[in-house]
Each structure stands twice: as structure tokens, then as C-alpha cells.
């Protein structure tokens, strides 16, 4: 993270400086709270009884503690397990494939002795300046690539990203060319050089890009919404979304018909599902945060 800049001088602080620090800590404290509170409410709401939510609304700490929402989810666990399976599958497959693609391509466009490296870079970069937009893409994927209701629709479109390519290129460019040349002189072929010399030096770059890719796949619901019809192919985030739609529709119907829905804990169920879907991210977050900071920092320096 950000390292401490100048050590504060040991001179007497003036009043205005003190005021500045007070404002500084209070403001950052408030923003931090604003970023944290929704998560706390989410978790506490998921452990609150339906009755308490309906008559008292959400609160910071569960007023009537219960695990009934989680019990309900895991009473018929197949749906959740299936959605977890889909999410894990597309995340692992997409990340692995995307990582290989990104690394190889970044290596190629970094090779100064490759004549078409600028043309190739432009070929990729142009897609960030101009694209067909939602309609063309949708029609083309469905009518000509036949991706409707296929797992490919969840994996292929997100596999390659120009932003990640540029970040990876920065990592590759830190490898001295002399190393690659000497490997070649020693008789290693291009692939051998790449896999046994270059790749091991790109570990931190691969961790960074791999995590970005994995986060994108894990959080994706958009492609599922456009292309997936069968419920058993829903990834976790989209399953959560469709559950929200259903419970909100149910609540609307019930309130119009003046029926109480207290038998089914719809509110806490939604929150419990949200916790189940976000849990893995929050759990690994402390360990992977530094890679994201690195990636964001490199990405902001235009290449």
C-alpha cells in the first residue's frame, strides 16, 4: 500500500494544521464507514428473523437472531451447489485460458524483433475505440455463433481484454531482452524460451491479471442474462438476481392481495443468498488486494 511520505516535522503544529488533520481523519473515517456499513447490514439482515425485518426493518445488529434463511437455502442445496459449480467452472476455465492468451500475446507485442508488433497492438487497441455495440453483438452471437444457452457465451467474450494486455505488456517489458536472446543462443526454441524462461519471471504479472479475470468471471451476470435460458446453467450472481426478481414480484402480488407472506423468509433469504454469493470474494480479499492495487496502478499509466 501507500508508503508513508515525508515524516512529519517536529515543529509545533499551527491551529489550521490541527483542524486539517481533524477534518482529514473524520472525513476518511466517514467514507470508510459508508463503504463498510452496507456489508454489515447485509450480514446482520441475513441472520435476522423475517418477523423482525418486516415490522422493524433492517438494523446494524440482528434483533432476533436466526439462521432460518440459511437453513432454507441449504435444505434444498442442489440449486446453490449447481450455481456455485457453474461459477467456479467458468471462473477457472476462463481465467486459465485468458491468462495464457494474454501472456502469450503480451510477449509477442513486446518482442522488438517482431516486425508486426505495432500493427498487432493497434488491431487490439482499436476495439477499445470502436465496437459494434450491444445490438450487433447480441444478434451476431446468437444468430451466427449460436451461443444461446451455451457455456461458451459465459466464457469466450470475457476471455481477452485489451486493458489487461497493456498491463501484462508492462510486466513483460521489465524482463531484459538479453535474457531471451541468450536463451536462444543456447539453443532453446521460441516456445521453450517462453515457457521456461519468460513465464517464471511473470509470476506476479500473472497473479495480477489472473485475479482481475477471475473477479470479472465471478461477478458476471450480464452475459448470463443475455444468453442463458436454462436455470441449471445460471452462474451464482445471475441466480441471485433472478431470485431477487422472483421475491420482489411475490411481495408485490402478496401486498396487492393483502396476504401475509411470513411463512417464507423472503427478505432474509435474499440477503443470505447475497452473502453466499459474495462470501468467497470477501474471504480472499485481504490476501489478494495488493495484486489489484498493483494492476490498477500500472493500468493507469498509459502504455
Amino acid at each position, binding site marked *: 500500500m501507500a508508503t508513508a511520505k515525508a515524516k512529519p516535522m517536529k515543529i509545533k503544529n499551527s491551529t489550521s494544521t490541527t483542524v486539517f488533520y481533524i477534518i482529514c481523519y473524520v472525513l476518511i473515517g466517514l*467514507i470508510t464507514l459508508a463503504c463498510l456499513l452496507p456489508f454489515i447490514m447485509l450480514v446482520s439482515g441475513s441472520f435476522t428473523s423475517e418477523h423482525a425485518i418486516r415490522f422493524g*426493518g*433492517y438494523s446494524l445488529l440482528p434483533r432476533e437472531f436466526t439462521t432460518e434463511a440459511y437453513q432454507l437455502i441449504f435444505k434444498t442445496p442442489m440449486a446453490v451447489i449447481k450455481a456455485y459449480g457453474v461459477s467456479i467452472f467458468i471462473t477457472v476455465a476462463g481465467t486459465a485460458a485468458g491468462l495464457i492468451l494474454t501472456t502469450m500475446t503480451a510477449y509477442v507485442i513486446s518482442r522488438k524483433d517482431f516486425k*508486426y508488433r505495432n500493427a498487432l497492438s493497434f488491431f487490439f487497441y482499436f476495439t477499445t475505440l470502436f465496437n459494434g455495440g450491444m445490438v450487433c453483438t447480441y444478434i451476431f452471437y446468437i444468430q451466427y455463433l449460436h451461443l444461446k444457452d451455451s457455456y461458451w457465451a459465459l466464457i469466450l467474450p470475457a476471455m*481477452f481484454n485489451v486493458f489487461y494486455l497493456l498491463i501484462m505488456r508492462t510486466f513483460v517489458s521489465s524482463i531484459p531482452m538479453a535474457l531471451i536472446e541468450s536463451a536462444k543462443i543456447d539453443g532453446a526454441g521460441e516456445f521453450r524460451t517462453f515457457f521456461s524462461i519468460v513465464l517464471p519471471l511473470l509470476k506476479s504479472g500473472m497473479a495480477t491479471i489472473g485475479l482481475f479475470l477471475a473477479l470479472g468471471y465471478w461477478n458476471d451476470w450480464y452475459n448470463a442474462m443475455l444468453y442463458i435460458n436454462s436455470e441449471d446453467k445460471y452462474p451464482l450472481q445471475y441466480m441471485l438476481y433472478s431470485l431477487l426478481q422472483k421475491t420482489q414480484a411475490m*411481495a408485490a402480488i402478496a401486498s396487492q392481495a393483502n396476504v401475509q407472506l411470513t411463512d417464507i423468509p423472503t427478505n432474509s433469504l435474499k440477503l443470505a443468498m447475497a452473502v453466499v454469493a459474495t462470501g468467497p*470474494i470477501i474471504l480472499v480479499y485481504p490476501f489478494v488486494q495488493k495484486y489489484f492495487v498493483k494492476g490498477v496502478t500500472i493500468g493507469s499509466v498509459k502504455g
Partner: protein
Amino acid sequence: MERKGVTMGKHLSNFTKEVKKNKALFIMAAPAVLLVLVFAYLPMSGLIVAFKNYRYDLGVFGSDWNGLANFAYLFQSGTGWLITKNTILYNLLNLVTSQLLAVLIAIFITEMNSKIFKKVSQSIIFLPYFISWVIVGVFVYNIFNYETGILNNLLASAGVDPVNVYSMPGVWPWIICVFNSWKWCGYNSVIYIAAITGVDSQIYEAASIDGANIFKRIRYITIPSIKPTVVTMLLLQVGRILRGDFEMFYQIVGNNGQLFDATDVIDTYVFRSLLQNSNIGMTAAASFYQSVLCFVIIMVVNTVIKHIDEEYALF
């Protein structure tokens, strides 16, 4: 003619020479080239749907041409202007608020002395970037829904009548703006913090010794040091001024018809018409107009910037 043929032939022989020399590199780049070709370039051919009376059974290329009728219909119905206006205004509002907040956070966090506070607050502020917009949608609903929302609970405990925010279009630009900043301020401040910590700490020390107080240090050292980053970020965003953040709008507003006039951007409009299969031609026209204008804007902005200061040009 002959001359052209000769240069063409030369290009081709150069190319085959390069392929022979760097065969392995061509093979390495091939999968990504193929993927981008099929998933990004080939769909562009579908742009012609904007000039056609699209019928699913005839396909993109078989449908009949109908000139500019789709565009005329889009703008005569008023929809085109409304969604363009909304997209631009939302992007401007979000751009200014989220970048300002991120700069403020970055300056404050780097000025802090407590390492723990610094680290913890930065980690937590970065957290919203990692969750999907679906979860953000859950938060929004939990706060604003009429029966059980936190807002109405707070109002009730203060003795005020509950409000139905979902029937008040006027407040939604601000709600969207707040959640956009909430989700991105951590991410953006990481960029600015990196720019600030890149400054040689001796400069700050020298300034302190010369008697510059904290405000002077921020004004004359910190802000100039992040200026190039701010400009780059603004330019990048201006290039996307006609692209609405579909995931954000869709999850926060949803299919709430009452709010469409205030919250419909080009992307949500296109998506809705696509799912309802209503007038694909007009939808494609909106999408075409967005893509082309975006491209023109980014090229113009970049050219102008190049003239003013080459350093700031994006490419």
C-alpha cells in the same frame, strides 16, 4: 497498376519472410487474434442492421434496406434525444463527483500519519469495487424500499411519514451518483495515491524546512503531481461520454417504468428493446449512433489534446 502489383508482391514476400523467421510468435498471437476477430470485429458487420428493416428469419444480410428510416423514427419519437441527454448528463455528473471524491480521498489518505488507520481505511474504501452490481442493487433496495427500507425506518423513528422513493424520479440522479462514487472512489483513489507517492519525499521535506505548511504543500506539490493523472482520467471518461454504465443503471433502477424518463440511458434503452424484440432496426440505429459518435468524440478529443500538449494525448 503494375507498380501497385509490385509493391503488393513485396509486402507479401516480406510477410512470408517474417512468418518464416518468427513462426512461433505468429502461433502465440494467433488465438487472441482469432478471438478478437470473431468476438469483436465480425459483430461490427451487424452495424448495417441500423439501415435495414431487420427480420430475424432473413438475418442481418438478407433483410431489406430502408435507408435512414430507423434514425428518423428514433429521433422523431423523442426517445433519441431523451436518452442522449440522460446519458451525457449522468456521465458528466458521475465523472465530476467520483473523480473529485477520489482525489480528495487520495490527498487525505497520503497525509495521514497513522499507518494502521491509513491501511485499514484504504482497504475498506477499495472493497466496493470487488462486489457485483447485483449486490449493490440489493443494498439500494434495502435502503429505499417502502415497507422495510432503512430510510423509512429512520424516518419513522424520527416521527416523519415514510416516503416512496421509487415514485420520485427527481432524486434518482443523485442516488445513482452516490452509488457510482461509492463503488469507484476506492479504485480511482488507488490511482491517485500511486501518483502522489511517486513524488520524491525529499521535495516535501525541503518544502517543510522552508516553512511551507500543509496547505501549501498540497497546493504546490501534491496537486501539480497528480494533474497529469487527473487529465488522463478525465479524457478517458470523456471518450466514453455516450456510453452508459449498463450494469449500474440496470441493477439500481431495474425495470421500474416510473423512473425511465429520469434514468433511461442509451444502453438500458437498447437492452430493453432488444429483449422485448420491439423494432430491432430502431434499436440498432441507437446503438450505431452511439458507437460512431463515441468514436468521433474520442478521435476529436485526442487530436485537439495533441495540438495543445502532446504529453496528454491518449494515443
